[in-house]
């Protein structure tokens, strides 16, 4: 019969390898937590440094701007009032000087077919560049080819008269400077 030892005071033997493994695990965990804390603190410090570098205007500067901004607005409003009409007149002159009649005639020459004859043409120096004209076309094909070319330019056909062998049309279209 096998004898069972019942000595509770006896110290159990410790497995050295298993203990070393567990101790290493604990040490690693402690190191991991410490590294996380250090990383977090380092990130905060670098963020704070960046924030300091990108700092906007300070409180005294903002107070000065608060004080100066209404004065600037007043000054601008006064100058607008005194120089505004003169500036508007100069702007209007420049806009009208930049209007080109020749460019519009060139455009008309480019879109007109040989079978289309311009009978009357009226051009005014206005921002929308409205061109009013009366034309005569020999065939419907030529007439519609012209309509097709003028369609993107707000073409308005006021009147079309069909006579023997000719189509007479009053029409208008807009060609502002930007489209030339």
């Amino acid at each position, binding site marked *: 019969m096998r004898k069972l030892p019942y000595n509770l005071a006896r110290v159990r033997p410790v497995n050295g390898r298993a203990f070393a493994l567990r101790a290493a695990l604990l040490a690693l965990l402690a190191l991991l937590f410490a590294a996380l804390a250090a990383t977090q603190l380092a990130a905060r410090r670098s963020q704070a440094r960046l924030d300091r570098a990108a700092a906007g205007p300070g409180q005294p*500067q*903002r107070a000065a701007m608060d004080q100066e901004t209404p004065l600037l607005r007043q000054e601008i409003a006064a100058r607008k009032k005194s120089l505004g009409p003169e500036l508007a007149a100069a702007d209007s002159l420049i806009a009208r000087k930049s209007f080109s009649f020749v460019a519009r005639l060139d455009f008309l020459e480019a879109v007109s077919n040989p079978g289309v004859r311009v009978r009357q043409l009226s051009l005014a*120096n206005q921002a929308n560049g409205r061109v009013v004209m009366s034309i005569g076309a020999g065939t419907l094909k030529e007439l519609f080819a012209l309509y097709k070319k003028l369609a993107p330019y707000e073409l308005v056909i006021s009147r079309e008269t069909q006579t023997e062998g000719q189509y007479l049309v009053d029409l208008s279209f807009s060609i502002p400077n930007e489209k030339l």
Partner: protein
Amino acid sequence: MKSYRVTVKVLLALLALSAAACLLAYAYGSVQDMARQGRLQRRAAGRVQEEEFNRLRAELAGWEKLPADLRQFYREHVISMDDFANFRRDLNLCLDDNGFPAPSITFQFGKRSAHLLKVTMQFILKGSYRNLKKFIFDMEGKPKMQFFNKIDLSAGGEEVTGHFLMEAYLGE
């Protein structure tokens, strides 16, 4: 056996300490983040204010520069009273060069406004389309403030008749 126990205790203490430090670091980070949000908002408002201020300063600088620019514009592009005779000579020369000798031209002098006096000219030209277009081209190329206000062209036979309405602006 005792040394094992001491080792375990030390390691557990170290683990607790590092875990606490980690927690504290993250808590500190969160508090910092909240404070930073407030700072960033204040800074963004400051930037907007600074940009607006700079824009106003630049606008004012533009307005301060404007009188000199307008003077230069008048000097270089608006016809002076002395130049008006030259302008009329130029117009006649341009007409002559394009085969339209001495048409009758009506000059109408308007009211002076914003330091400018408007002169309206009306005339009728008859000739080939090519010559009319060349005349328009030549006049449009002049640097001073004269331009066509309205042109009506009507074709009749071989000739084209052009009704011209022109404007010139005279300075002081």
